[in-house]
Structures are given as C-alpha cells and as structure tokens.
C-alpha cells in the first residue's frame, strides 16, 4: 500500500508525544486503562441501542437496524484551528447560496464564462423549471454539511459539499451526551464549546425563512419519508428537540396552493417544511410520477410562495461532484477573494487530458461517480484489487463524464480504541452550516467519522465506519460550559452521573 504516513490530530507528526495543546488528552489516554475505555465505550453503545439510535444499512436485510459504532477517544480542535475553519466555511456556504441564486436567476457566472454553461444547464440536478424562482428570503441551501479532510497541521481540504439533505447532526449531539456522561473528567481538563444549541439555531433558521406575512409564529414541520428510512432516528430526534411536528407525506395535503397538515382538530396551515426527502420523491406531480412518497402539489405551493422548503428544491446542483471541481472559481467569483478552504485536487474525466491521466494512474487515485453517494460507486485505487481496477477502467472509458478522480490523500488519523488497544485510524469531519434570513451560523462542532479498519480510508457509515465526538476548544467565556453544581470540595463520588 502506498499511503504515506499520516498526520495525527493528537500526536502531530512526531508520533510519541502529543501536541502541546493536547497534552491532557495524552495523559488521559495514558492513565485510563484500555479495559476501562472499553467498558465506557460499550456502555455508550448499549445506551445508543436502547435509545434506538440506529441506522439501516441498505441491501443488508438481516441487520436492518444497526447502531453506528462509537469511539470513546475524542478528536480535538484548538480554538485557532476552528476559527480558521469557520471563516472558510462561512465564505464557502455564502458562495454556494450566491451561486444558486445566480444560476436560477440572472446566470451572470455563466455569462462570464467561469464554468461551462452546459455543465450547469444540462446537469440532471439542475431544475430548469425553477429558473426565475426566488425562495422565501432568497436562501436556497439552509443546511449544508461540508465534508473536510486534513493532511497536516495547517492543511484542511474540502472533500465534498452536501447541500441537499445532509445527515449526521444527531450523532454530533448524542456523541457529546455520551461523552459528558461517561468521561466527565475530560470536560474538566479542556474548555469545550457546547453543541447543544444546535436544535435552537435550526429552529430559528426555519422560522427566519417563513414566507412573509405569516406572522411571528410560523408553523414549521419536519418532513420524513417514514420510519423505515435509514436516517429516521435523526428526523425524529431533530423534530423532538426543536418541538415541531414530524410529518410523513400522508399527513400533508395541498389545497389551492396552500399546504395543510391533518390533525385531530382539523387542518393546520404549514409555513416552513424542513424536508428530509430528496427532490425526486417530494412531489409526484413534478418529479417521479411512480413514487408513492411525496405530497402532490407541494411544488406548486412552493412556486406560489406559500411555503418555504428547506433546503430549497434545486440545491443539488451545488453539491454535484462535477460542479465541485469548479468551487474554487465559484467562491472567488462571489466572494472576491481566494477560497480559504481549498478543494482536493480533482480530475474531471469529461476532459480528455484528465481522463488519460486517470486511466494511467488508477492504482494511485480515488475515482468517484459524479452522482454517487454513501461510498457506493467508488474506487480506492491503492487498496483495490486488480479486477476492481479493470472494472473501473472499462466503466471510465464507456462514460467518462460520469466520473471524477482525486489523489489518495494521507488523511489524518486520531487515536482510536481497537481490539489491540489504542491505534491511529483515519478520520474526516463534517461541520453543519446553517443559513437563515439573517446570515450564516455554525455551532462549534461537527461529526467526525472514523474508518475502523486499519489503514482504511473509507469512513462512510454505510461502509462500516464509526463516529467520534469532536471537541472544539475555546478560551472565550461565552463558549464555555456553565459551571457544574454540587457541594464544595466534593470530588469523584456523588457528583452528577
């Protein structure tokens, strides 16, 4: 295998001594026996199973409900690292929203030739019928999950922009709950920014984009495909923590371009829908007539300006992997400056030179389907078999425009509890970025996914990856956890469990 030695988030490049800021974590790992870490990890996973924090794996019938493995060793960001990331995230998400408003509006970026016109207009994710349509308050991508990877102390890269219905935020919140309960001592050693404001911020975001004239108490709902969906736990968790109704398509009806939900007391008008259903399945009158999911007439109500859809229809064009390769240019075009968070170098196989390079270097590259997700339709060259590489070679030659290729990055590692004790495992990171009518908000945290197999770079939960808590450190008082109550001098026993 040709993956070079990776940067470790805690131990840096040195290997045996933790980075100065994280000495306390090193000490914690040192003094806590593996068996104790193991015990706490199992307690966390037992609690997750009891709570039903499960994830359905498609095509895997016998384990229809699995929990995502949880790793007890957290990953940590310094306050400085986070504030740099945050600037880059705000810039990128503002650009994504400006881009969407532009291509569904005046199309200046296309007129200026920044990216090929047909790449946008002929893209299956581009919804031509929405041209000229402005969503309420002009926001398209209210919730973005930006996947980041790291290769060195100062080297963060954007791997993917998720601008449709990004998931995973419930793990950010539940992992923190588990850590607070099982490893409270860590939160005494570090000043950790709390993440539990996220549901409140999400609710504020939803309210802020209600159609004008709907009063100060707009009715917001979360629309789920139903409890057989793999992310249903997250849907119900978010609805519950925001205090809004969790609705299924059959609970909604559209009448005269107004959306209503059916209640025991008759119909109630709905103003904002946080939908966790893809465009394709949201309205059988517009998208897939064969779909039994969806609310007939929903898009008409949206076009009439009577309901806000979060995220707005048509945002898929912004996270399309073919568009992704142009993000540095897009960010520069709308922000006027260089992208603070760079892209991973990307070969667009639709371009003959890039295709040739890709075909010549398959064993070094990661090749992805432009419209694939969840780790499906992906080749990881360095760990692939000869046969897998030849399969991809044939597929690439047949339909080059459907693929992009990226170098295999030496993804950073984080110490992780394995069967053989603590060992480095590769990670990525997905912070969640909210955009309301009043701008961009980011809760200091995110989802760290970890590849549990030694050497593996695939962190997707559908491919057996796990998650970790992501601690963001702070010195500013407003970010700190409130002091814990209790009798003075009482340590250890008798504290809050």
């Amino acid at each position, binding site marked *: 295998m040709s993956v070079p030695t990776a940067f470790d988030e805690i131990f840096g490049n040195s290997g045996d001594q933790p980075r100065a800021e994280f000495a306390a974590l090193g000490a914690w790992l040192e003094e806590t026996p593996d068996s104790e870490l193991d015990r706490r990890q199992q307690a966390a996973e037992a609690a997750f*199973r*009891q*709570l*039903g924090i499960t994830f359905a794996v498609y095509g895997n019938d016998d384990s229809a409900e699995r929990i995502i493995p949880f790793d007890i060793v957290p990953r940590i960001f310094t306050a400085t690292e986070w504030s740099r990331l945050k600037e880059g995230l705000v810039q990128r998400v503002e650009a994504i929203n400006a881009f969407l408003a532009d291509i569904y509006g005046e199309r200046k970026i296309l007129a200026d030739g920044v990216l090929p016109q047909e790449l946008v207009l002929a893209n299956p994710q581009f919804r031509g019928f929405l041209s000229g349509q402005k969503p309420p308050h002009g926001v398209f991508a209210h919730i973005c999950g930006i996947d980041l990877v790291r290769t060195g102390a100062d080297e963060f890269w954007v791997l993917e922009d998720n601008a449709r219905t990004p998931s995973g935020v419930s793990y950010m919140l539940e992992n923190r709950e588990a850590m607070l309960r099982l490893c409270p001592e860590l939160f005494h050693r570090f000043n950790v920014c709390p993440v539990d404001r996220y549901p409140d911020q999400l609710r504020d975001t939803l309210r802020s984009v209600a159609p004008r004239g709907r009063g100060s108490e707009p009715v917001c709902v979360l629309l789920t495909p*139903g*409890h057989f969906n793999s992310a*249903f736990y997250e849907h*119900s968790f978010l*609805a*519950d923590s925001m205090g809004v*109704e*969790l*609705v*299924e398509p*059959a*609970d909604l009806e559209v009448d005269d371009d107004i959306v209503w*939900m*059916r*209640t*025991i*007391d008759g119909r109630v008008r709905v103003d904002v829908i946080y939908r966790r259903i893809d465009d394709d399945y949201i309205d059988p009158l517009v998208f897939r007539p064969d779909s039994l999911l969806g609310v007939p007439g929903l898009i008409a109500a949206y076009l009439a300006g009577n309901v806000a859809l979060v995220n707005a229809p048509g945002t898929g064009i912004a996270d399309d992997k073919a568009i992704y390769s142009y993000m540095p240019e897009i960010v520069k075009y709308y922000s006027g400056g260089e992208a603070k968070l760079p892209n991973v170098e990307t070969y667009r196989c639709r371009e003959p030179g890039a295709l040739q390079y890709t075909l010549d270097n398959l064993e070094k590259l990661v090749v992805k389907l432009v419209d694939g997700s969840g780790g499906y339709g992906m080749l990881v060259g360095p760990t692939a078999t000869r046969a897998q590489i030849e399969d991809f070679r044939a597929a690439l030659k047949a339909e080059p425009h459907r693929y992009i290729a990226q170098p295999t990055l030496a993804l950073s590692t984080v110490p992780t509890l394995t069967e053989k004790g603590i060992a480095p495992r590769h990670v990525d990171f997905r912070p969640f970025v909210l955009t309301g009518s009043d701008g961009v908000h980011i809760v200091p945290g995110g989802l760290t996914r970890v590849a549990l197999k030694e050497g593996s770079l695939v962190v997707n939960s559908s491919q057996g990856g796990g998650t970790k808590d992501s601690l963001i450190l702070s010195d500013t008082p407003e970010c700190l956890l409130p002091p814990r109550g209790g009798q003075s001098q009482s340590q250890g026993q008798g504290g809050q469990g």
Partner: protein
Amino acid sequence: MLSRTAASLYWIGRYVERAEFTARLIEATVRLDALSARPAGATAWESALLVVAADQGFAATGVELNPRNVSAYLTLAVNNPSSIRSCLDAARWNAKSVRTALTRDAWETINRAWLGLRNVTDMGDLRSALAVIEKIRAETRGFEGALHRMLRNEAYAFLGLGAAMERADNTARLIDVKYHLLLPEGEQVGGVIDRDQWTTILHTVSANTAYRWLYHDELKPWLVTDMLILKSELPRSLAGSADEVLGHLAFIGRRLGRQGEADRLARQRQAMLARTSIDSVFQQGLHEYLEAFLVENARLDRTIAAQFRFG
C-alpha cells in the same frame, strides 16, 4: 396533534395493555395449573386460549395442547397476532413512528421490552417461562411509570384512552370465559376447583387483596363479578375503565374546544354502569350482558377513530 400520531398513540396504549394482560393471564394460569393437590391441567390452558380468542389459532398449529406449548404460543408466536411478541412488535412499530410524541422514558421502556423478547426463541420449562413473563411485566410497569411523568397533554390522553379501552375489553372477556368454564363432573359450584378458577381471575387482574378490602368476605362468584363489572374504584373493572375513557375524552375535548359522538357514547355507557346492579346483570344473563358490552366497546372504538380522523 397529527391524526396519524393520535392513532398510533391510541394503539400503543392498547397493545402494551394487551401484552401485559396476556402476561398476567399466563402467570395466573401457571398458578392455577400448579396447585398440585388438584391440578387443573389442560382445562386451565384451554380457557386461557379462549380468553384471548386464540383457541382456533392454536388448534391450527397442530401442536399438542400442553402448558409449554400454550404459553409459548401466547408469548412468542409470530403467527398469533395477539401474542405478547406480536403486541410488542406492533407497539414498537407505532412508537417508532411517533417518537416525538413520546418521552424518552416511554420510548425506552417499549424498546427495551421489545429488545428483551426479540432473541427469545424458546420459553423453556414453566419456571423459565415465568422469568420471561416477569421481565415483560416489569417493562410494562415501567411504561406506566413513564406515562405518569409525561406532560398532561393530548399524547398522554390518547395513550391512556387506548389502554382504558383495551382494559375494558380484556376484563369482560376474562369474566365471560372463566364464568362459563364447565366444572368437572361431580364438582360443586363453590367447591375447591370453582374457587381456584375465581382466584385465578383475581390474580389475572391483580385484585386478590382488593376483593378482601371491598367485601370483607370469602370468595363468592357473584361478588367477584360485582367487583369486576361495577366497582369503579378498581381500575380494571368495566366501570373503572369506563370512567377513565370518559375522563380522557373530556380532557381532549376541553383542549380542542369541542366534543363529539365518542363523548356522548362514553357518557351514556358510564351512566348505564352507574345504574346497574349485579342482580340485574345475572337476571339478563351474565354472558349476554358481557357480550353486549364487548359489542358496545367495539362501537365506541370505531367512533373514537372517526371523531379524531384516525383514517
């Protein structure tokens, strides 16, 4: 509240109550069967099947009617829609789809009960069967405890409404079957076997001590019947359940600002029970009385579904 949510909550209430009732019934039947001086044998298990209307389903499986097979059928059988497992499956299925309307505690107890039974494939001997049953009962008690900590809102009322409707149905079936059990030839009404049957009834509804407190008397069939039908201070009596149904409906009505046909039927039923004496029940025939009650209860169930647009 969404109509779908209300329907699911109502059915969670019914299914959890049904699971618990079946668990109690098995426990009481084991007890009846184990009175070693005069074992009740197959009759006891046959009557247990009759109470939950599972006699035909059991016969169709073709297995021998013995304690082990019947208790397994009532607890674990996937092809028995009223087995404890089927009830918990249905309760959890509903609970999962309306998680936001349940507290974490309430969801966890249902999920835990379901997880606890999921991998049980064999009940083993009666002793280990009782251990399984006791665990299920502990979980359903936990569910009731969790309910009491819920906000007093519509969600609470629909759960309680379902439970009370189910309880009325279960108690009526229990009295009907047990009362009409044929005594073995030569046995006296009021004799030992008769007494055992009535004790079993009281065990099934956890009312042995309640009986002594209410009547200060030895077991007399008409007094047991009086208690289970007319004593509203016993929560599992028909009168007690009818009070509770009315209370939940009135609460929902106040919250919504209007009432409907279900409220009218429930009020009528409560008034009838208040006017009834046990003598008049026996005069018209206990079986006929209970049968009419079950029909009326099913009608109220349909009316509730219509009133709240369960769909």
